[in-house]
Structures are given as structure tokens and as C-alpha cells.
């Protein structure tokens, strides 16, 4: 059925596409087989190399995914045989019959039914608490996203050597840990969600001049989130995270001005918001809320993002609702940044004095948005001298040129100016 008349380059790209679709599942299955994530990943890479050698000459097989999977599995069996560990492994996965040793196909089939468990375990391993956060990000991109070391380096703005080190150290740590037993979802889930959202934000923070691999991180995180929803459909926070990412991604087109300057939420042209992503985000939030229970930080943040998504214009924003959700968020996961955002919402809902009161005692070293928000609230209260001082501080602190421009212009605004 498959066409055999594709050029070598086209076939190469086709192979890579199949590989990227299948690699996480193959690595996940092989990890249980060989008991080592690093080895499982190498064996999966080997299968890719074989495909790249054979398919351009022999044609793409009728079932390319099955071909890659069985090639990788056979390699795993060979690797285990060389180590003399094959019989022990068979026993471990519930086969006590020695004659089954040669029945690789049947064995391979027996493994297939557990792919979702395997995939989930792989995700939890990549985000293992014994790894540093940086390593978790790199390993997740490698094992679940199928990104090469070079792509990871470009995406994270680090050198290829650094990326390679993080990955190989991470694999070593995981090899020492071995294969996880029954996954304790509730305990491990926060790390997985954190890593996914970190990857999303790396992509979201990318600016116009950046390598395209950086914004691609946002898409990668969103895809991973959607995969997680399929694996853990009963976890409200997974739906919450996906909702949050879909809703934030919906604003991508509106958040940069033609000159590359960032456009803040109230100033965005909402017609440029992506309706499909908004619809998906709102649906994901609804599923999270239907699941019930006490809402976690992702569901709450998604609920805030949904308030913005539902407002056709900035003026229609339901600030009292947003301020109320922030109050819950501040108790569920208190942080100075949450308080800062709460102050903005309260400043809109109840007026600048109430917002400013919330900022009393908040410290965020080196964080430009704190003095900027304070400056805005002070200006609205008519306390212009203090406002200008706050904006001067914000301009000193920011590392973003476009932001500095905005803060400086507000720092030099006249006393009577409409700030």
C-alpha cells in the first residue's frame, strides 16, 4: 500500500516522523524489558538507524510503526541475551515457561497491552525527584518529545555539550534508580506538571528573533499535556494544566506588536486570539471542574485565564471573579508573584488603594514587575512622585528592552499626565 517512489530525502523525513510518533512508546516498553531508560533509548535509536539504512532502498514497510517497534524489541532481546538476563526477565514479566524463550513475537505481543502504564512510568522517570529540574526538562524533551541533543540545546539556549551532559547524567541517575514500581501518581504528579509547564513557558518566553526551536517548546509542552490527559483522565490538575496552556497559547498572535514589542493583555486585539484553542481550553477547564475536589493551582490559574478568554473586550473582564480566584490561589499555593497578580486584580476590582494594601510587605528581589505594579497603583491614587520612583526602579530591574522603554516613559511622565 505504501508508495515506494519517494526520494531519499523524503523517505528520511518520513522515517523521522514515524520515529518521533513511536519513539516514546518504544522507549517506554523497552525500559521495562531491559530495566534501564538509557539503554532503552539507545536501542530505540538503533532501530531508527536501521530504518534510515534500509527504507530508502527497500521502500517504507507496510506498517512502519510496527516495523520500528519490533526491530527495537529484537535488539532489546539480543542485548538481554548477551547479558544472560533473558530468562530472568521472562520470569519477571510472568512467563515461567522456559520454552517461551524463543517465542519472541508472542512475548512482544504480551508486552503491548501495557503501553499506557509504560508510557506513564517513563514520564514519571523523566521527571524523577532525584534529578535536577534542568535535567528533568532535558530528559523529558529527549524521551517524550524525541528531540535531539542539538535541538534541546537550541531550544533551551544552552550549549550542545551542556545539553548532552544533562541528558547523560540524567540517564546515569535513572539507571541507578532502576525501573519504577507501581507509580505513586499523587506524589509524583506535581513534578510532571511543573516540568511540562516550565517547558511551555520557555517556549512562551521566546521572542521574535529567537530560533524557531524555542517557540516549538510551547507546542511540545501542549502536546505532552494532551498526552497526560489521555493517561490520567481522572486527575483535575492535568486537565487544569492543559486548559491553562491552551488558553495562554490562544493569545500568541496578539501578544507581540508589529515592531516586536510585547503587548500586554488589556491592550491585545482579541480578534487575534485563537478560537479553537480557547474552545479547547474552556472545555478542559470544564472537565477539571466536573471532576471536583479542592482545586489545585493549575485549575485555578486556568480559571483565571478563562475569565480573560470569556471577556470580548478588556473592559468586560470580570475582575471581582478574578480577584476572588486569586485569593483562593494565594492560599493554595502562596507566593509573592501570586500576591502581586492578586494586587493587580484587586486594584481593578476594588480600586488602587485595596491593591496597594496587598503589596505591603511583599518583596521580590530583582523582579521588575513588583515596582511596576506598585507604580501603576500609586499613579492611579495620584501619588505621582512615588509612582515615578517606582517606575525608575522597574526600568533598572528589567532585562527586556521593550519593557524598559515603557517603564522609563512612565517614570518621566508629568504629574498631571494620565498614567
Amino acid at each position, binding site marked *: *500500500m*505504501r508508495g515506494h517512489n519517494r526520494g531519499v530525502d523524503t523517505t528520511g*523525513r518520513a522515517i*523521522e516522523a514515524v520515529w518521533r510518533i513511536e519513539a516514546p512508546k518504544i522507549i517506554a516498553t523497552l525500559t521495562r524489558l531491559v530495566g534501564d531508560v538509557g539503554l532503552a533509548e539507545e536501542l530505540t535509536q538503533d532501530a531508527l538507524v536501521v530504518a534510515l539504512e534500509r527504507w530508502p532502498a527497500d521502500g517504507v514497510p507496510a506498517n512502519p510503526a510496527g516495523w520500528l517497534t519490533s526491530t527495537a524489541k529484537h535488539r532489546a532481546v539480543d542485548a538481554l541475551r548477551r547479558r544472560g538476563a533473558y530468562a530472568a526477565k521472562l520470569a519477571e514479566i510472568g512467563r515461567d515457561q522456559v520454552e517461551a524463550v524463543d517465542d519472541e513475537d508472542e512475548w512482544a505481543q504480551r508486552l503491548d497491552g501495557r503501553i499506557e502504564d509504560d508510557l506513564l512510568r517513563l514520564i514519571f522517570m523523566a521527571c524523577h525527584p532525584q534529578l535536577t529540574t534542568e535535567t528533568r526538562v532535558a530528559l523529558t524533551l529527549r524521551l517524550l518529545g524525541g528531540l535531539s541533543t542539538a535541538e534541546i540545546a537550541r531550544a533551551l539556549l544552552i550549549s550542545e555539550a551542556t545539553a548532552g551532559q544533562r541528558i547523560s547524567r540524567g540517564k546515569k541517575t535513572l539507571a541507578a534508580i532502576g525501573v519504577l514500581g507501581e507509580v505513586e501518581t499523587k506524589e509524583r504528579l506535581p513534578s510532571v506538571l511543573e516540568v511540562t509547564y516550565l517547558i511551555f513557558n520557555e517556549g512562551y518566553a521566546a521572542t521574535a528573533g529567537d530560533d524557531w526551536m524555542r517557540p516549538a517548546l510551547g*507546542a511540545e509542552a501542549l502536546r*505532552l499535556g494532551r498526552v497526560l490527559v489521555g493517561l490520567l483522565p481522572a486527575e483535575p490538575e492535568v486537565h487544569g494544566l492543559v486548559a491553562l496552556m491552551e488558553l495562554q497559547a490562544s493569545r500568541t498572535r496578539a501578544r507581540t*506588536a508589529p515592531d516586536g514589542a510585547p503587548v500586554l493583555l488589556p491592550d491585545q486585539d482579541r480578534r487575534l486570539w485563537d478560537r479553537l484553542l480557547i474552545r479547547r481550553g474552556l472545555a478542559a477547564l470544564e472537565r477539571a471542574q466536573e471532576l471536583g475536589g479542592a482545586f489545585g493551582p493549575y485549575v485555578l490559574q486556568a480559571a483565571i485565564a478563562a475569565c480573560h478568554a470569556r471577556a470580548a473586550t478588556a473592559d468586560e473582564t470580570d475582575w471581582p471573579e478574578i480577584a476572588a480566584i486569586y485569593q483562593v490561589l494565594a492560599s493554595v499555593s502562596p507566593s509573592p508573584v501570586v500576591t502581586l497578580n492578586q494586587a493587580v486584580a484587586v486594584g481593578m476590582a476594588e480600586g488602587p488603594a485595596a491593591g496597594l494594601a496587598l503589596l505591603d510587605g511583599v518583596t521580590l528581589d530583582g523582579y521588575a514587575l513588583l515596582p511596576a505594579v506598585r507604580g501603576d497603583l500609586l499613579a492611579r491614587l495620584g501619588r505621582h512622585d512615588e509612582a515615578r520612583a517606582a517606575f525608575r526602579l522597574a526600568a533598572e530591574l528589567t532585562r527586556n528592552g521593550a519593557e524598559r522603554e515603557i517603564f522609563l516613559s512612565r517614570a518621566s511622565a508629568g504629574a498631571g499626565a494620565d498614567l
Partner: protein
Amino acid sequence: MRYLVLLKAAQPATPPPGELMAGIMQLGEEATKAGVLLDTAGLAPSVAGARVGVAGGRLSVTDGPFAEAKEMISYALYDVRSKEEAVEWTSRFITLHHDLWEGWEGEAEVLRVFGPEDFGPDGTPQL
């Protein structure tokens, strides 16, 4: 990147086999769980639809069916990393039809849809 896949086919007179329908459901579930299938649905025969256009400077509305060898059968919207990935999912879909429905002939168009990430700062699409 988003791709819209439009399936056009000349359907055999026989009803689609149950196996095919089960296969399509399974493939759809797989693509959803892989995080790449955003939306999909079947399309009713064109007799249920209409065509709106401009002819001779006037708005014209023509009721279906449209006299074409192949009818539009379904659409799917994917969010994938490359055109090749969209082509791969589509190949699986087409292969299912070929393998499970005797006499089936059809083709799918894999069309790039501009998503929010495809627009440069000046608002023009970037390919």
C-alpha cells in the same frame, strides 16, 4: 503546526465494514492520546449541503448533490511537528480503508492551516 486533512472518496455500494469503523475509532483514539488530533468528523453526502458562490456578478446558491466523482467524506484537524507527521497519520487512515473495504478508492488532501504560531510580528503568515 496544524494540518487539515480532507478525505475524498468514491465509496463502494457496500456499507463500510464494521472492522473498518472499529479501526477508524481506534486510530482516532490513538491520535488523540498522542496529543495530535484536535478535531475530526464525518461529512454527510453533498445532497445534504449547498454551494454558495458568485456567478455573473451575482450571488448564487446551488443545492447539492455536486456532480463529482468523489465525495468529501470526512475531515480531521491535526496539531503535529511536521508535514511528514501529518502525512504519516493520514497514511495510516488511508491504509485502513484500503485494507478493510474492498473496492474503496480515495485520497486525502493534507493542507497546512495557519495557527497562532505561524504569524510573524507584522501579521503575515510565516512558512
